[in-house]
């Protein structure tokens, strides 16, 4: 998974498809529908205004036609009042004035109905009276005008105040004749105008209803189109989200965006949880998630690195190489809830927007397999080198000794396997521990012989095996799970021995019995020089066969070489001093190991290994026993020096520093003793402080060749 180092933007779904739609194309239908909605609304509004205006005019007309009815009656009343006042000789001025006012108003209003004119309204303010347009109305107005014209003429002298009694009588007669008819005509006019107004109001209602209905339909259409469009957009978004989710769920890498405050973005691939051992949530801080997994320094380096990446002036390509999380080891819980070590790789890529670092795209990978493979390749390379070197050494070695070693080693390792197998039938921890001690002795003997033949690879592998066994042995309570690793170690050794078995070894080179014994024991002593060099010591060796010893059956027994190796290694590790110590003690810098084989008169073979080292030191052994806690101090005080020295063959006892390949296991003398006892012999030791020690083995007259050891 790679992200361009150059400014990048997250591609929108449309960007990868056909050319994007314009705004008009995308929203055309909705725009048309909304425009229609506005047009309908405006149309209805305008019609509404117009009709309302007309209704207002109608209201004025209806109102004034009603006033005409009232004026016709007031006119008659004023005329009759005037007639009565004249008859009574009273002042007729007010009545005439009232009559004039009413006649004038009636006349103007009636003409207004006919032609349209501005007339005083109900409140006295001028209003425009629209001419009656309706045919029925016009007919009524025409009829009223026809009747009003002579009536108006008859009233003229009265209004001018010069009417004779007869003229007044004519006017009164007119009033009496026309009053009712005029009232009816004005009534008719009012009715006609009311009908018109009602019709117009009905029309307005209809227009409004239709307008609202159209607007409603249009709104529903807009809503439908809008919702459809929204649903399509949602479906597209959902599809994008679903694809996004599928990608994030299935991608093996851990992917997420990191904000400048180191919090995680909302899109996090599922693998992140698997890789970190816990599922993070959007908004979690990356340093908090990594805190439990990393060392404090690594975490600080990671934080500094991320801050660098968020700084725009730092070139991304230049800092990639200093990414502290490119390969980091973490401990997490696996799918079974069990702690496991793994290697993770984090890579950070900038996500830029207008030259500003908005996020870091973080990619996590589990590179455990890759790292393991690299380590395996390195290990294999080292092992191959070592194996090659071992093979070269083996080919240069004494082929007879090598052949004997290979044959014995396989037997020893199969015995180890039998002992491991027998653990299943052992009940107590003590029994198991005892069996493991036997395994340890076998492995230790194997290691010694491999080292004697300079088979370093085998010696190292055996040493590692010993380490595992030692750790097991040191545990207070043996846990069955810790046994699981043992067959793996054993198998490794068996595989290597199988390789050595395939090396063609010339059986004829060393089959002369005397030569075999000589070579085997000389080879055993060769270890001395080698182990001494490893320990910073110098040593010379001497091999002495006294009369008849070389022909003794035991002298030709390869197992004798194994015993000598153990004794020699023990003498070099514990007896021989360093050159400086020897010089200080007035001795030559190089120590001397003398191996002497002598045939006793009884037929037994006696083997002495003498060193001129520091000798057994009871005080050091006593202190070591105290450190090991094997005896309470008071009991140690009661033991004689001889009894104290008797402890050195016990399993687990060693005065050397632990962990070295040549000593420190506390097994060497124990293994020798066990082997000597198995062969039916005896082991003894003699020592003189400052002058050296001699370890002696006495073996019976006959060589007891019984290679098959049965596990106890």
């Amino acid at each position, binding site marked *: 998974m790679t992200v361009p180092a150059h400014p990048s933007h997250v591609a929108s779904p449309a960007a990868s498809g056909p050319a994007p739609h314009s705004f008009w194309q995308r929203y055309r239908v909705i725009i048309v529908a909304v425009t229609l909605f506005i047009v309908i609304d405006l149309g209805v509004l305008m019609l509404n205004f117009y009709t309302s205006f007309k209704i207002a005019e109608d209201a004025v007309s209806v109102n004034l036609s009603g006033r005409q009815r009232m004026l016709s009656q007031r006119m008659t009343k004023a005329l009759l009042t005037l007639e009565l006042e004249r008859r009574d000789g009273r002042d007729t001025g007010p009545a005439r004035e009232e009559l004039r006012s009413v006649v004038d108003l009636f006349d103007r209003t009636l003409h207004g109905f006919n032609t349209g004119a501005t007339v005083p309204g109900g409140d006295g303010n001028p209003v425009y009276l629209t001419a009656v347009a309706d045919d029925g109305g016009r007919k009524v107005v025409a009829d009223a005008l026809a009747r009003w014209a002579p009536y108006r003429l008859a009233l003229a002298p009265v209004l001018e105040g010069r009417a004779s009694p007869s003229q007044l009588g004519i006017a009164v007669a007119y009033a009496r004749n026309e009053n009712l008819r005029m009232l009816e005509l004005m009534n008719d006019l009012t009715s006609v105008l009311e009908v018109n107004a009602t019709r117009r109001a009905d029309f307005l209602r209809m227009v409004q209803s239709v307008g609202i209905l159209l607007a409603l339909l249009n709104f529903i259409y807009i809503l439908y189109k809008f919702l459809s469009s929204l649903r399509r957009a949602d479906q597209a978004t959902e599809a994008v989200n679903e694809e996004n989710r599928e990608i994030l769920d299935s991608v093996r890498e851990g992917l997420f965006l990191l904000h400048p405050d180191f919090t995680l973005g909302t899109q996090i691939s599922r693998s992140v949880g698997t890789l970190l051992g816990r599922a993070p949530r959007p908004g979690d801080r990356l340093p908090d998630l990594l805190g439990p997994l990393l060392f404090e320094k690594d975490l600080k380096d990671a934080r500094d690195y991320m801050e660098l990446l968020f700084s725009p002036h730092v070139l991304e390509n230049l800092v990639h190489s200093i990414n502290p999380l490119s390969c980091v080891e973490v401990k997490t819980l696996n799918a079974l809830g069990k702690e496991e070590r793994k290697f993770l790789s984090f890579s950070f890529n900038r996500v830029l927007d207008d030259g500003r670092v908005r996020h870091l795209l973080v990619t996590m990978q589990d590179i455990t397999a890759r790292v393991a493979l690299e380590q395996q390749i390195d290990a294999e390379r080292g092992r191959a080198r070592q194996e090659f070197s071992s093979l070269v050494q083996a080919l240069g070695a004494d082929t007879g000794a090598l052949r004997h070693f290979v044959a014995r080693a396989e037997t020893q390792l199969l015995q180890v*396997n039998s002992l491991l197998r027998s*653990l299943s039938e052992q009940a107590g921890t003590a029994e198991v521990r005892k069996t493991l001690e036997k395994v340890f002795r076998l492995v230790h003997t194997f290691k010694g012989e491999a080292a004697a033949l300079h088979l370093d690879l085998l010696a190292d592998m055996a040493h590692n095996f010993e380490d595992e066994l030692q750790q097991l042995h040191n545990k207070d309570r043996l846990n069955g799970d810790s046994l699981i690793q043992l*067959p793996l170690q*054993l198998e490794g050794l068996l595989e290597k021995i199988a390789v050595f078995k395939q090396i063609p070894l010339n059986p004829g080179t060393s089959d002369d019995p005397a030569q075999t014994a000589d070579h085997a024991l000389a080879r055993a002593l060769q270890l001395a020089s080698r182990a001494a060099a490893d320990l910073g010591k110098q040593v010379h060796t001497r091999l002495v066969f006294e009369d008849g010893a070389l022909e003794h059956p035991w002298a030709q027994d390869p197992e004798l070489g194994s015993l000598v190796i153990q004794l020699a290694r023990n003498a070099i590790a514990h007896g021989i001093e360093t050159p400086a110590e020897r010089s200080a003690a007035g001795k030559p810098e190089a120590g001397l190991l003398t191996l002497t084989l002598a045939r006793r008169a009884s037929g037994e073979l006696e083997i002495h290994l003498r060193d001129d080292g520091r000798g057994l030191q009871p005080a050091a052994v006593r202190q070591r026993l105290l450190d090991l806690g094997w005896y309470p101090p008071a009991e140690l005080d009661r033991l004689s020096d001889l009894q104290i020295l008797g402890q050195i063959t016990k399993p687990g006892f060693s005065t050397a520093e632990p962990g070295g390949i040549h000593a420190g296991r506390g097994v060497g003398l124990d293994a020798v003793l066990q082997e000597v006892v198995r062969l039916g012999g005896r082991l003894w030791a003699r020592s003189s402080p400052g002058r050296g020690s001699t370890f002696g083995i006495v073996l019976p007259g006959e060589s007891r060749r019984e290679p098959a050891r049965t596990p106890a």
Partner: protein
Amino acid sequence: MATLTEDDLQLFVDAVKHYLKATSKQEPEITSAFLGDSSVIAHEFNGIVSFMGGYSGQILVSMPEGMLRELLVLQHEHDLSETNLLDAVGEVANTLAGNARKVFGPDLEISVPTRLRGAQGITARVRPRPYVITFRWHRHPALVCVDLERR
């Protein structure tokens, strides 16, 4: 021959341990681990799963009749017929295979468990000497034989 790691072996052991612990609340105790050959005689009831992919070979889970009977009783199972006992040991082998898939990944091809009746010597398939891990549960001995190689 690609050697397996201790973690690989531990995985198979853990699977059996978890199964038995979940069933009986008592974890089995590992009693030994060694290299097996035909002289190692398995128990009466055996479940075998074969692997292909990242690993090849097979794993054998072998249990005695008494142990399986006890297991079934603990699971409130009344049918203690041979078929059911074989099913039980097959289920343990299947659980083990499932755990292997969880850890080794979905690329691992695992067969359905083969169930076999009869105590026989262990037959090596891919390793010269397969790993044998013995354990004890409720006094009953049982074993897991891992005969796998990493590809």
